[in-house]
């Protein structure tokens, strides 16, 4: 046992000596100590109580504040969640150069099922199979009666379908809001727009993500909340695109072609005003890629960008321009054109074994499309300089256009650039490039000689790169192309008032098993209008066309691609804001009143 010390010891001892009761002193001492202790405890408690009171005050304040912020925020019912509509609204619209809508968002509903909540699963499955014929009734019954807690039935349903599902009256069938992408113009510009799919999916929202075309190439931009829904402005012109697709479709049918593509490009900026590829598809209901067969026959295949073809004689103007730029020739220099040209074991002949005589001027070489003369000019230029020029025009790389498909479409180049390759390439055989490559090269050569970059985005002002040929060479090349239309192989391309210039190209299709097909060609027309003050370049390519109105089938571009291109120019030039130059009628032809 511990001994409690007597306190205060001195007083107790002296009291004991005096014979007084020391307990009194000790009690007094205890009382004083007690009071002191209580006083200390009270002061401490005072402080802590104030802390507690403050704490409670603050916490109640926080609860009240939170109530106020909640009460002032938007109501969120299970059917309309404000926070999720924020996510979907983030995907911006896509518009054409005048602001007309190419892609926007539409509110629909998704249908999902929670089998544990279902009252009559079999009946619901039967009713659903009736509403949506593509659903399998047996499978639905299996899903609804099995152990699944949740399943998607349909990703997007129309308001009518939603009403019908409502009328089933099944509590286990539920709807979630869904923002879907809508392409109001249907198939128009399908290859450029691409398509969309759903990313992360929840009951109340789903991410809309681009799966192809500009939708995918600009996916980050379209979904960037910092852009606040600023639309993506494309260089396309909706009306021109519609006209081009229409004419091209008609042309493809008339010329019995299996595919067709057309590009219209602004020569000064590289903006693609229209780009069409047939056959096409509806991006609202993007089909699955073909599993078998040639990929090039897939409607999803963008021929203008992904299709690489031997573009034939359209390349001759490139050779001619380089020859003039190097100072080797001018427009009137006579070139040797004796056919056939023998180079090693190869014999270079003209189309249909024609012979244009021993000499041809450079202009006539283009006008008559002489392979031999071009080959001779190419040999003068030499392989090094030819390669450098082609590279400068962008033929050795995929087009830098803003489509996810573009980087995958590399031009097909011969492995070894020998002299025979130099010769064949000069008139467009032996290497393959896309129609967009050709349009870009034409724009660069003909706009005064500055390189342009193809783009699908709306741009301002001329965007000229470095110079590839001089102003004079560019003018001379345009003049030659104009003469091709007035007196050469592309006379069908004449559109009154628009001074079209251009070059045809007919190339035999390579057989995948080696060699070339006898009766399958790629017919191309590449042109510029107006030729004296160039504004637009147009490239039209038909795949396996055959024109059968004559006594024997005609496949050359002059009979197939050129009339289609002419119709495209006739229809689109006014839409592009170009005034036709009509020669003023002479006065004596006018007769205002009939003289008696």
């Amino acid at each position, binding site marked *: 046992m511990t001994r*409690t010390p007597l306190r205060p010891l001195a007083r107790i001892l002296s009291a004991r000596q005096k014979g007084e009761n020391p307990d009194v002193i000790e009690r007094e001492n*205890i009382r*004083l*100590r*007690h*009071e*002191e*202790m*209580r*006083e200390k*405890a*009270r002061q*401490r*408690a*005072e402080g*802590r*109580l*104030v802390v*507690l*009171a403050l704490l*409670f*005050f603050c*916490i*109640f*304040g*926080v*609860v*009240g504040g*939170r*109530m*106020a912020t*909640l*009460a*002032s*925020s*938007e*109501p*969120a*019912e*299970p059917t309309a*969640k404000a*926070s999720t509509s924020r996510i979907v609204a983030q995907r911006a619209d896509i518009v054409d150069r005048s602001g007309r809508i190419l892609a926007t968002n539409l509110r629909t509903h998704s249908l999902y099922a929670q089998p544990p909540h279902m009252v009559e699963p079999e009946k619901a499955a039967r009713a659903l199979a009736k509403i949506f014929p593509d659903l399998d009734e047996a499978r639905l019954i299996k899903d609804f009666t099995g152990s699944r807690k949740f399943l998607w039935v349909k990703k997007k349903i129309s308001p009518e379908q939603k009403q019908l599902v409502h009328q089933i009256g099944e509590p286990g069938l539920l709807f979630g809001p869904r923002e879907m992408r809508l392409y109001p113009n249907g198939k128009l510009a399908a290859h450029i727009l691409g398509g969309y799919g759903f990313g992360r999916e929840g009951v*109340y929202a789903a991410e809309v993500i681009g799966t192809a075309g500009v939708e995918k190439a600009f996916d980050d931009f379209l979904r960037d909340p910092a852009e606040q829904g600023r639309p993506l402005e494309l260089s396309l012109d909706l009306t021109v695109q519609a006209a081009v697709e229409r004419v091209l479709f008609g042309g493809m049918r008339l010329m019995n072609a299996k595919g067709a593509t057309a590009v219209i490009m602004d020569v000064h900026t590289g903006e693609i005003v229209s780009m069409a590829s047939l056959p096409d598809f509806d991006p609202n209901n993007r089909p699955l890629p073909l599993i078998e067969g040639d990929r090039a026959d897939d409607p999803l295949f963008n021929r203008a960008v992904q299709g690489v073809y031997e573009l034939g004689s359209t390349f001759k103007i490139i050779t001619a321009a380089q020859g003039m730029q190097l100072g080797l020739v001018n427009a009137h220099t006579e070139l040797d054109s004796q056919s056939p040209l023998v180079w090693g074991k190869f014999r270079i002949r003209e189309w249909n074994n024609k012979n244009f005589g021993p000499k041809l001027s450079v202009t006539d070489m283009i006008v008559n499309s002489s392979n031999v003369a071009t080959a001779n000019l190419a040999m003068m230029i030499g392989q090094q300089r030819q390669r450098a020029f082609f590279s400068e025009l962008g033929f050795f790389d995929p087009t830098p256009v803003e489509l996810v498909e573009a980087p995958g479409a590399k031009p097909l180049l011969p492995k070894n650039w020998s002299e025979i390759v130099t010769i064949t390439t000069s008139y467009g055989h032996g290497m393959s490039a896309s129609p967009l490559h050709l349009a870009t090269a034409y724009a660069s050569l003909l706009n005064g000689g500055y390189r342009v970059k193809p783009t699908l985005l709306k741009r301002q002002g001329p965007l000229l790169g470095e110079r590839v040929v001089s102003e004079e060479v560019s003018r001379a090349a345009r003049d030659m192309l104009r003469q091709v239309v007035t007196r050469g192989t592309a006379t069908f391309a004449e559109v009154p008032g628009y001074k079209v210039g251009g070059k045809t190209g007919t190339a035999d299709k390579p057989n995948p098993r080696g060699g070339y097909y006898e009766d399958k060609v790629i017919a191309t027309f590449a042109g510029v209008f107006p030729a004296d003050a160039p504004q637009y370049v147009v490239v039209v390519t038909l795949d396996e066309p055959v024109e059968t109105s004559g006594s024997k089938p005609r496949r050359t571009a002059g009979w197939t691609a050129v009339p289609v291109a002419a119709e495209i120019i006739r229809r689109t030039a006014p839409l592009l804001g170009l005034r036709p130059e009509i020669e003023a009628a002479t006065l004596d032809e006018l007769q205002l009143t009939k003289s008696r």
Partner: protein
Amino acid sequence: MTEMVFGAAPMRDGEPILPRWWRTIDKWTISAVLLLFGVGILLGLAASPPLASRNGFAPFHYVERQAVFGLLALTAMVLTSMMSPQLVRRLGILGFFCAFAALALLPVLGTDFGKGATRWYSLGFASVQPSEFLKPGLIIMTAWLMAASQEINGPPGKLFSFFVTCVVVGFLALQPDFGQACLVLFAWGVMWFVAGAPFTLLGALGASTVLVGTLAYNNSEHFARRIDGFLTPEVDPTTQLGYATGAIREGGYFGVGVGEGHVKWSLPDAHTDFIIAVAAEEYGLILVLFIILLFMGITVRSLLRLIRERDTFIRLAGTGLACTFGVQAIINMGVAVRLLPAKGMTLPFVSYGGSSLIAGGIAIGMLLAFTRTRPQGEIGDILGRRGR
């Protein structure tokens, strides 16, 4: 002469009970309590008809019961508040032992009403939840023990009170009723804090709370789901919490109108745990802020009145009662606005529930008894009687 013959007329040794009660009672607090009770009836009119219709009663069956229990509770409150602190202490200790016995016998005699936790005694016409009555009893007990420890040569009351609290918590956890267990632990902690807990121990307690919470999160799936549900920013609108949040948003500042609310039809606990959501939806932010103000007024004002109190027992018991009351309100409303993870807790005086109402009345009666104005020895201070 008359006096000499018949003796002096009996004199009271103080002023009459009622006037003295009226003079010394904290009128603000008692008014706030009466207002809260009124709000409870008002909200019961809105929130309980769906429940009544589900259970096959007349629409205002639960409102009538609430009114009856409320009157009982108010009577208990007034009677308790008239008692002297000593009497409150004695009855409180006795009540504690009775309630504890009832709590301990729950596993044998109690019913669970099919809710998965054995918390009630069924009396036929009503059910009693002993833990509601145990709370004020335990607070009195703890305060008594802690006050005793502040006497010279007194018992180690803080340690004893901790053991008692732990035993009670153990029984509550057995039911299981972790909400009440936490509340009891919290009350003990607050009283310990005011009784002068050293800060090192307080820090250790905080750290151990975090530790236990982490352990529970890692080991209990139920607990982890609650916490995860709380931490995800997106609330699933088909859960109770989602409905409550939606209802508060729907209500806005002035509510959708009396009887126009929808949340009471979707929430099974609209008349108890989520009554604040009903209030917010039908009467708007205005009424909610008013309710918060009432709770804050009662709690903070009681605490401020206790600052002047010199009696250790009264101070501690008052603190425990006031803080338990306030925290219960905070938890209830904090859950509805998603400041706290989901935890069922009734809103004192407002939620429907006989036991909670009467026990709340008794607790507030005790608090009122403790916060009555009484001489605190200020005159002694002035006269310098006390040694310093």
